[in-house]
C-alpha cells in the first residue's frame, strides 16, 4: 500500500553533507592562523606551535571531559577549582613522601596516582549529588567550585604550595620533554581526544550521553540507566581533570589559590565553540579540540602583536568567540 506524500522510503544516507555547522569552527581556526601568520613570521615556527598546543593541553583535556558532561545535559563549573585542589594534593603528597622514599620516580608516580584519585573522587561527589541527590548540576558544581577553591587556599596556607626542588627537577620532563620533539602534554592531549572521539561516536555510552541530553524521558523509556550514565560523565570529567593536572604540576611545580581560576569557563567556551549544544543532546569531541586551539591561539596572537592595546585583549577574545559560533549558523537564515 502506498501513502501519497512527498516522502520516499528512507534510504540510509552515508555521505556527510558539508555544512556550516561542521565547517564553522574550522573556518574560524583557519582565519586565526592566517591572522597569526600575517602578524609574525615566527607564528608557524615549531617552537610557537608546540608552546601553544602544550599550554592548551590542560584546558583541552578538561574540555573533553566537559564535552561528555554537557552532551548528557549536565554542567560542571567546579573543574578549575578541582584542578587547583588536585595540584595541591599532589604536591603535598610528593613532598610528604620524600623523607621516607627519597627523591625517586616512585614518589612522582604515587603523586600522580593521588592526583587521579582525588580527581575521580571529586567527580564521584559531583555526580552523586546531581544524580542521587537530584540537585541542579549548576548549583552542585557552583557549590563544589567554592569548596574546592577554599580548600586549596587552606592547603596552601593562603600562599603558594611549591614542590620540593629536587622532585620538581625529576618531574619536569613530563611537561617539557616528549617523543620525537612532540612534548608529552600534546601527546596526551591527542590521545585523550582520539579516545574521546571514539567513545563519543562508537560506543553505547557516547550514544546514551547524546540521548539523555536530548531527552531524559525518552532515554528512560528506552531502558537507559540515566543516573548511571550521568554519574559516569562526572567521574570521567574528574579523572580527566586529574590527567590535566599531572601535566600541569611539572610546568611550574607550584599550586596556589589562583591555579585554575576561570578554567571552567574556558573549557565550557571551547566546548560550545566546537559545536556542542550547551543544553545537551549533541556533542563532538573534535569540535572541542578545535575550540581549545582557537582559545589558545587568541592568547598567543594577542601576545605576538602590539597594535591592539592590551586593555582590549578581552574584547578581542570576545569577538573571536562570538564569531566562531556565528560562523556555524552560516547562511541558514537565507
Amino acid at each position, binding site marked *: 500500500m502506498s*501513502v501519497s*506524500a512527498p516522502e520516499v522510503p528512507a534510504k540510509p*544516507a552515508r555521505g556527510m553533507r558539508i555544512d556550516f555547522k561542521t565547517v564553522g569552527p574550522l573556518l574560524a581556526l583557519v582565519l586565526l592562523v592566517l591572522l597569526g601568520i600575517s602578524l609574525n613570521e615566527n607564528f608557524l615556527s615549531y617552537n610557537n606551535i608546540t608552546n601553544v598546543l602544550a599550554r592548551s593541553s590542560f584546558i583541552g583535556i578538561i574540555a573533553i571531559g566537559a564535552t561528555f558532561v554537557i552532551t548528557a545535559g549536565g554542567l560542571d563549573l567546579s573543574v578549575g577549582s578541582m584542578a587547583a585542589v588536585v595540584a595541591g594534593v599532589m604536591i603535598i603528597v610528593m613532598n610528604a613522601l620524600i623523607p621516607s622514599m627519597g627523591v625517586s620516580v616512585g614518589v612522582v608516580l604515587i603523586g600522580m596516582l593521588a592526583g587521579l584519585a582525588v580527581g575521580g573522587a571529586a567527580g564521584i561527589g559531583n555526580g552523586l549529588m546531581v544524580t542521587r541527590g537530584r540537585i541542579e548540576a549548576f548549583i552542585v558544581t557552583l557549590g563544589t567550585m567554592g569548596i574546592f577553591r577554599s580548600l586549596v587556599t587552606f592547603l596552601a596556607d593562603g600562599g603558594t604550595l611549591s614542590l620540593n626542588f629536587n622532585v620538581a627537577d625529576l618531574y619536569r620532563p613530563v611537561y617539557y620533554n616528549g617523543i620525537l620533539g612532540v612534548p608529552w602534554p600534546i601527546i596526551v592531549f591527542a590521545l585523550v581526544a582520539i579516545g574521546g572521539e*571514539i567513545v563519543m561516536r562508537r*560506543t553505547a555510552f557516547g*550514544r546514551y550521553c547524546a540521548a539523555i541530553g536530548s531527552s531524559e524521558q*525518552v532515554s528512560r523509556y528506552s*531502558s*537507559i540507566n540515566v543516573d548511571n550514565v550521568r554519574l559516569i560523565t562526572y567521574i570521567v570529567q574528574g579523572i580527566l581533570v586529574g590527567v590535566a593536572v599531572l601535566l600541569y604540576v611539572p610546568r611550574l611545580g607550584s599550586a596556589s589559590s589562583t591555579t585554575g581560576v576561570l578554567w571552567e569557563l574556558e573549557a565550557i567556551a571551547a566546548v560550545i565553540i566546537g559545536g556542542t549544544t550547551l543544553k545537551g543532546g549533541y556533542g563532538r569531541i573534535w569540535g572541542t579540540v578545535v575550540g581549545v586551539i582557537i582559545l589558545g591561539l587568541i592568547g598567543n596572537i594577542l601576545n605576538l602583536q602590539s597594535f591592539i592595546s592590551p586593555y582590549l585583549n578581552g574584547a578581542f577574545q570576545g569577538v573571536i568567540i562570538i564569531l566562531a559560533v556565528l560562523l556555524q549558523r552560516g547562511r541558514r537564515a537565507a
Partner: protein
Amino acid sequence: MSDPQDSAVRPILAAHRISKSFGEIPVLFSIDFDVRPGEVHAIIGENGAGKSTLIKILSGIEQPTSGTIEYDGQTVTLPPNGQAEAMGIVLIHQELNLAEDLTVADSIFLGRELKRYGFLQSGEMRRRAAEILDTLHVHVDPDARIRSLSIADKQMVEIAKAISRDARVLIMDEPTAVLSVGETQTLFDQIRRLTARGVAVVFISHKLDEIMQLAQRVTVLRDGQLIATVGTEALTPDSIAQMMVGRELSNLYPPKHEPDVDAPVVLSVRHLSAPGVHDISFDLRKGEILGFAGLIGSGRTAIAEAVVGLARRSEGEVELEGKPVNFTRVAQSVDAGIAYMTKDRKGKGLLLNMGLRPNLTLLTLKRHLRMGFLDSASEERALERSVRRFDIRARDASVAVGRLSGGNQQKLMLGKTMESEPDIIIMDEPTRGIDVGTKQQIYHIIAALAAEGKSIILISSELQEVIGLSHRVAVIRTGRLAGVLEGAEIAEEEIMRYAAGIKQGGHNERISA
C-alpha cells in the same frame, strides 16, 4: 460545491487559487477555500496532503507562493508570526502553544497583558479570565499552572485565549486527537456555542464520524490538490475516506483470527497497585490482542508503566510465563521480552533532534556492539529491515525524526519497539494523530503480530479501534478494572457503560478467562 444552508452569506475568510512551494517542492496547487461566519468547515486529508500548510497560510504563518487571501471582503496580506490574531484570526496548534509554567490567567492574557502605569493588573486579569472560563462552562482555576492541567483543559484554555482575543475565525488543527469521547463532546458543545455567536471555525480532524457530526462543509485535500468541497449532509464516512485516499478503502480492520482458548497465559497480573492503579488483575494469552479501553486519565498507561518497571508498584504480583517478576528498570522488562510503546512519541518515544538510525536502535543498542564498539553496519541493517517491514518513509535517514510526519514517527517507534523482539507488546495509543492510510497499515501490523504468536495489549481511546482489533476488552475506570468484555459483548455502548461507571464488575470471573 454547494452549501444549501445559506450560500448567500458572504465568507469572512477566503483563499483564492492558493499555491505554495517549499523551495522546489510544490505542496499546494491552486486551492480555493472559504469559511462563513457561524460555520464549521472541516479540512480532511491524509498526512502530507497539505492540510497544515493550508491553515498556516490561512492564519498568516506562511505566505502563499501565489494566490490571494480575502478577509472580511478585502484582499489582504496576513501578517506573519501569529500577528493575524490581532485581526481576529486565531490558530490553535495541535501541540498546544502554552507555556507550561504560567498560570491559566497569565496564559490567556499572554502578549496582551492588562497594565496600568506599566504594572500588571493581576487581579483584573484573573477576574476576567474567570469570567471567560465561566462563559465556556470550563471549571479551571485561573491560578492553576498549565502544567497541572489535563490536555483537554489545556485546550479549553487555548479556546478561552482565542475568545479573549475576540476571534472571528478560529482554526483548530486536530483538536480531538488527544481527547476522550466525553471531552470531545464538551469541545463540540463549545464550538457550537462559538458558531452560534457567529464565529467561523476551520477544523482539521482524522476522525470522520466527528466531522459528520460537527461540520457543515468538508474540504478534502489529496497530494496538495483540492479534491472537493461538499456539504456534509451529502456524505457518508465511507465516501469521505474514499475521496481522501482516492480508492476504495475496504477492510480498515483486518479480519480477526479466532482466539485460541487453550493458548497458554503468558502474562498474569494479580492485585496490582501503583500510583493511579488500584487492585488490577488480568491475564494475557499467547497470540491474543487484549484491548484496554477507558477514558483519558483512567489509569491505563499507569498500569502499563507499573508492569514494565517505569513506575514502582506498591502491591500485587506479575507473572511472566508462570514466573514471578518484579521489574524496577525498563531494561529488565525488555530483556524479559515485554516492550512498552509509549503514547507520547514526542516526549517519551523519540529523540526528535536525531536521525532515524539512533532512534531505532536506542532501546537495543547493546545488540549492535562488536568488541565493545558500535557496529554501524549492523545498525544500518536493522534500519533497512525496519524501513522495509514497517514502510517508514523519510527523505533520508539523517533527517531529524522531529520533521517526519506523525505516521512515520509512529511507524519508526513501532520499529524501535519491535527491535527488542518482544513476545508481549503493550501499545499505548498506537494510532494517535495519524492519517487513515497509516492507521490501516498499523492495524494490519498489529493483527499480523498476534497471528505470529505475539501477545498484545492495545491501549486506545478510539473505541472503533479497540473493538475492531481486540479479542477481549478490559475497561478501566479511575485506576480500577471496571469489566472485561469478549465476543459479542464488545460493542461501543457496552464499553461506554463500563467506562462511565454505569455498569460495573459483572464479568470478574472472566478476568482470568
